[in-house]
């Protein structure tokens, strides 16, 4: 604990910093490299969308940031402190809602607060706040299996946000939803981010989703996984507040989309 405090004092910096992250499966020279030399910093109010073809290592990267997977080399620092194992600092929303089926929606949302030892009254108040943030007040006492797919995913988001993490990692959270639900979830997420300004690291393979949500877009390529693009999204909806259909009609939209598609697919033909 003492060394941790010293480390924090040395590099007081807010946000998430990844330094020289490499990951290889297997040992030594025969190991298959999954990630190589990944470096980046996320600001405390970033909304980053990470695009990449399947198998480019974006999920492995998310697992490393979450602390589920130990990188072969490199470090993850959250607000300057070394992060090596999962804790409430880093929240995760999975592709599948991953709610606890035996707990009601409000108990699910309260789970992190309960683990943190927050007194019952305060817990209930904060749970109610986050339930209303995702618009699920009326579902508080239901069990997860009684909810629709979109509602479950919103509950999962509320559960993660309620623990008040420094960063929220989202691993293709809307990819299992139907198109209409997905669009409404994207709008929800934008609204939530505008209110909370929590750092979000959002993995997707959907270019439109990245353009719609991300304030910053990063593109990964496989073999081994690395970042080839990292730029501020000029269309970022959360900043300019355009409705979805106007965003799609914006004149920068098509060329930008084209460029991202090329950047993702280009490498595929190479390797």
């Amino acid at each position: 604990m003492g060394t941790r405090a010293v480390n924090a004092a040395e590099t007081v910096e807010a946000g998430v910093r990844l330094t020289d992250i490499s990951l290889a499966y297997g040992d030594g020279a025969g190991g298959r490299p999954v990630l190589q030399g990944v470096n980046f910093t996320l600001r405390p109010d970033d909304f980053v969308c990470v695009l990449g073809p399947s198998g480019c290592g974006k999920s492995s990267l998310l697992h490393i940031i979450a602390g589920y997977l130990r990188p072969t080399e490199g470090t993850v620092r959250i607000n300057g402190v070394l992060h090596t194992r999962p804790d409430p600092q880093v929240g995760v929303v999975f592709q599948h809602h991953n709610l606890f089926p035996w707990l009601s929606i409000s108990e699910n949302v309260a789970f992190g607060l309960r683990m943190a030892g927050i007194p019952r009254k305060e817990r209930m108040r904060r749970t109610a706040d986050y339930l209303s943030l995702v618009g699920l007040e009326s579902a508080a006492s239901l069990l997860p299996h009684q909810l629709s797919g979109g509602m479950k995913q919103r509950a999962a988001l509320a559960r993660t946000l309620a623990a008040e993490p420094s960063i929220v990692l989202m691993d293709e959270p809307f990819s299992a939803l139907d198109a209409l639900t997905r669009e409404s979830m994207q709008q929800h997420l934008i609204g939530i981010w505008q209110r909370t300004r929590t750092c979000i690291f959002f993995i997707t393979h959907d270019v439109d989703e990245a353009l719609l949500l991300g304030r910053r877009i990063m593109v990964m390529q496989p073999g081994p996984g690395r970042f080839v693009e990292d730029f501020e999204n000029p269309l970022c909806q959360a900043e300019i507040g355009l409705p979805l259909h106007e965003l799609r009609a914006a004149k920068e939209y098509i060329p930008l989309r084209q460029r991202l598609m090329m950047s993702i697919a280009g490498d595929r033909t190479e390797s």
Partner: protein
Amino acid sequence: MAAPLSRPLKVSRSKGYVLYFTVSCCSVLALFTIWWIASHYGWVNPLFLPSPADVWSAFTDIAREGYKGSTLLGHVGASLRRILIAMFFVFVTAVPLGIVCGRSRLVRAVFDPIIEFYRPLPPLAYYSLLVLWFGIGDTSKVILLFLSGFAPMFIAAVYSARRIPADRINGARSLGANGFRLYAFVIFPSCLPDLLTGFRTAVGVTYATLVAAEMVAAVSGIGWMALDASKYLRSDIIYAVIIIMGIIAILIDSAIRLLIRRVSPWIEQ
């Protein structure tokens, strides 16, 4: 956003259930009719197959006057007490051990060979050893029942712990659950539906061992009643006892099934 909260599935299921139940009732009725006809026309020696009326009167006799020193309820109670004690110890030992074995390959490597070895052994093979060790009283009987129930419960616990999705554990750790609290708040409740199913199997196996357990030096229990009656060729009593045993088994099983549905309503059965 109106959610599909009512499940229309339930209607069709209950309709199918009525049909299923009716057919089952007819099947049981048919069996009784055949039994009645066979004994009425003397197709089978009454020693092998007493008439339903004889079995009924044997039952009412036992119910009214008891059997050799205890009432019928006393015998049933003695057997259920042995099963209950055995199952209590099965649950409190096999469940934690099984869950830990399911989570850790190394711990599993310690216990797996031992349990895999004794599991297929017929309980009667080692019963005499238990009697040598623990005497002819209730202890050896309960331990025999315990051993027969332990293996299926343990295997269910291992399986249930291994089946927990990795994401659920990861997600819980990211919400701050660690160590004992991870086991208490996430792993155990995740396992619970499978544990109850395993418990159901274990009770069945224990019940099947009951007669064997009551073979040696018992003076009470329904298993013992069946054995004792056979010494005097009282097949009417044997039949009555078997039917009582069957009904008790069905009642226990339905109770556990009800509990499973109450505890894990999200699992469609």
